[in-house]
């Protein structure tokens, strides 16, 4: 949980960087296009990773509560 919270800060900075890179027209700048795609992919993968970590945490809570009942 703590890891998720702290990695989120990196995500905020990455999301702030994205419009800086994409600010001017991209059609004549293939390098900038690649960067925009790469940063967007990093944002998506990090978000999905955080969702997965959240799923692991909630499964762990459920398992602990169920075993407590038994």
């Amino acid at each position: 949980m703590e890891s998720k919270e702290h990695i989120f800060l990196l995500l905020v900075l990455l999301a702030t960087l994205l419009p800086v890179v994409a600010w001017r027209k991209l059609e004549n700048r293939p390098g900038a296009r690649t960067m925009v795609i790469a940063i967007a992919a990093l944002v998506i993968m990090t978000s999905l990773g955080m969702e997965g970590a959240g799923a692991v945490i909630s499964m762990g809570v459920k398992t602990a509560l169920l075993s407590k009942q038994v």
Partner: protein
Amino acid sequence: MTSHTEPNSTLIPARADPDHLGVATLSFGLSFAVTGLLDALLVVAKEISEDSLLTAMKAATGHHWVTHGVISIALFLILGLLFQRLGIGRTMTANGLTVTIAGSMILSSSIIVGFYLLY
């Protein structure tokens, strides 16, 4: 020495910025790489020194998370503007900067996750 100008940008020598990313992209991209690593180290530092650093961060804004966020964003902006002013990173290529950003993200995440796994 040939040079080129682009709308709304400062004069940049042709040998710098080979992929025409722009000064802001280069500066703030590099700033993210540095800020990400410092952010991870700040996480480790504040968890290790709870009595001093964490307490000081709590006292600064009322909650250590707010202080941490303010420090991260401020550092990102200040370093970005500083690199832009000093011309640091101007010769980087798009691929080089992309790898630097991705590498910083992976390393910072690894430091944070690794620390909480071991701590």
